[in-house]
């Protein structure tokens, strides 16, 4: 029995196909302007990887992410908060705090021993502290996202950057460039500023170990390291790509629902 979870984020669409409690296929693609199209493309790719004929071969599909409610072939949708908690718990049942930094928002979720959400905090509308922010700053520093993270990791003396709004931070960065600051230290400063923003949310919910970082930005090792230093506790690494945690959670719900349906 195959089931799928689709996480339709603002920047990327993620699909996880599961078979009998095992991840069978995963895929991450860039989002198109239509969640329906992103979902179709992603699921097709994930299915063809394991020789399936897409939607008709899947028993149950759960959607999550901001595009979750508009897709015709999704059986049910569940919020990304619940899905990230579920996915993270499956990867490591010891996890009590999930910090999800995605394309346009970030969340801190406190999870109990059963993988259920106890409490959560979420940023407000603006994109500060999210993937969009990193993209804008990498553009200003004229480098790719990977280079941006690599630069920050090399910083010995991160600049102090106080603005968290992308527009204002950009002008702060331009001033720093003009003042002759090293690119590494500007990148390091930007990472630290984002971590400070995350901390305010983390403190609201509490940072109970074990802590995991999920979402696309979790691939940024400079962010992981800076967060570990600020929290004074390690951020655990999972065996699957942290970016697919939400889709994984959705797939786990799909699995449970399919079982009930087939009873």
């Amino acid at each position, binding site marked *: 029995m195959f089931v799928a979870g689709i996480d339709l984020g603002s920047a990327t669409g993620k699909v996880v196909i599961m078979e009998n409690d095992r991840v069978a296929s995963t895929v991450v693609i860039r989002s198109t302007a239509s969640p329906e199209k992103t979902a179709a493309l992603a699921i097709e790719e994930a299915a063809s990887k394991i020789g399936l004929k897409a939607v008709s071969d899947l028993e149950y599909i759960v959607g999550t992410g901001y595009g979750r409610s508009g897709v015709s072939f999704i059986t049910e949708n*569940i*919020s*990304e*908060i*619940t899905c990230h908690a579920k996915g993270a718990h499956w990867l490591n049942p010891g996890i009590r705090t999930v910090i999800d930094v995605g394309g346009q928002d970030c969340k801190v979720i406190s999870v109990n021993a059963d993988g259920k*959400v106890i409490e959560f905090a*979420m940023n*407000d509308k603006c994109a500060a502290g999210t993937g969009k922010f990193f993209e804008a700053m990498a553009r200003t520093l004229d480098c790719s996202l990977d280079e941006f993270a690599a630069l920050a990791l090399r910083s010995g003396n991160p600049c102090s950057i106080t603005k968290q709004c992308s527009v204002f931070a950009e002008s702060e960065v331009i001033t720093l460039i003009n003042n002759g600051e090293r690119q590494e230290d500007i990148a390091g400063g930007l990472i630290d500023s984002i971590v400070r923003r995350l901390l305010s949310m983390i403190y609201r919910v509490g940072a109970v170990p074990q802590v995991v970082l999920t979402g696309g930005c979790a691939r940024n090792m400079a962010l992981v390291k800076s967060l570990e230093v600020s929290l004074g506790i390690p951020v655990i690494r999972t065996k699957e790509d942290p970016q697919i945690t939400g889709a994984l959670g959705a797939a786990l719900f799909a699995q449970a629902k399919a079982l009930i349906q087939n009873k």
Partner: protein
Amino acid sequence: MNAQFKSTILQDFRKTAANPVNVSLQEWKKSGRKIIGCMYHYIPEEIITAAGMLPYRMKAVGSKGTELSESCFTQINCGFVRHLFDSGVRGELGFIDGLVSVNNCDHIRRFYENWQKKIKTPYMHFMPFPKKSGREQAEVYRKELADFKNSLEKHFNVQITDTKLKKAIELHNETRRLQRELYELRKKKNPPITGADVHAVMVASSSMPKEKYNTMLTGLLEELYTGEGISDYSERIMVVGGELDDPKFIEVIESQGCLVVADSLGYGYRAIAEDVDTDIEPLTALAEYHVLKRPACPRIFGTTFNRNDFVRHIAEEFKVDGVISVRLPLCDEWSFEQVNLIGYLKKHGIPHLTLDIDYILSSTGQIKTRSQAFLETISGTKHGR
């Protein structure tokens, strides 16, 4: 999730709540009668009714922006006063013949001063409202009410007799009684009306002549008694907050599958939980009602314990599964209240979510995600998801 209604009463209420102006208000105006804008709780609307005028609770529903407010307010003023002032400058509230305000918060003070300078409504009156709830304060407020009454009489050349005041109080009490009847229906397992619709009914009462409103509400209640109940909902939710006048925000919460069955809102239960006394001198009764009797908002010192009890009491009475409290960003009164509520509800094991929402709802994706996740969290505890 939508109850079916035979008549158009509910639609009329919805239309009234969704626009700053409505048909009954225009009719009122056409017949040469006056309208007085009220800012916002704690205004003894009965005095205005007794003067033969229509009390209109100031609102800026449908406002598109705050550009025209920007030069008059600072970055720390809340969206409500900015949108309202903007609508004022654009002339959209030009139908009011007077404006009366209490010093509910500093933002409203600033609003009043700016209005005085830039918009200049023919009649304006400001009533300092006590900061504390107590007998002495009620006496002081009684004097304010007398001043207000006198100034209305003088400016509009009317006479507000005690008999007229008593009649007005009875009329407004009747509105509150009918509204409480509406709330009673929400206690049912299958309430016959959604939370968004109830909110529209409540908001509509603030911009219509009370006689007409009471007749319409009586009609709606008759339909509701015989109508079908709503059963396709997941959780029962209570909403707590201040001056939220857009039923859409409740609609957004309910779009996630729950039913809002109770509230402690400025336009909601806090405004109708109690009646004004009809056995004592009218102005004293009105002062006591606002200072001592009605459930206070966080603006009044020393009322936190009562308010917490009030929320818990309603949560129990209406059998809610969780509480969502809403606040406009930059509203300091409700910021402190959020902190208080989080702690209080946690202590009593009542699930709680806080939402920051703009006065004019534009993007609703975030609210939906938060509400959905909150409901999933509750149903996780309820059904072991």
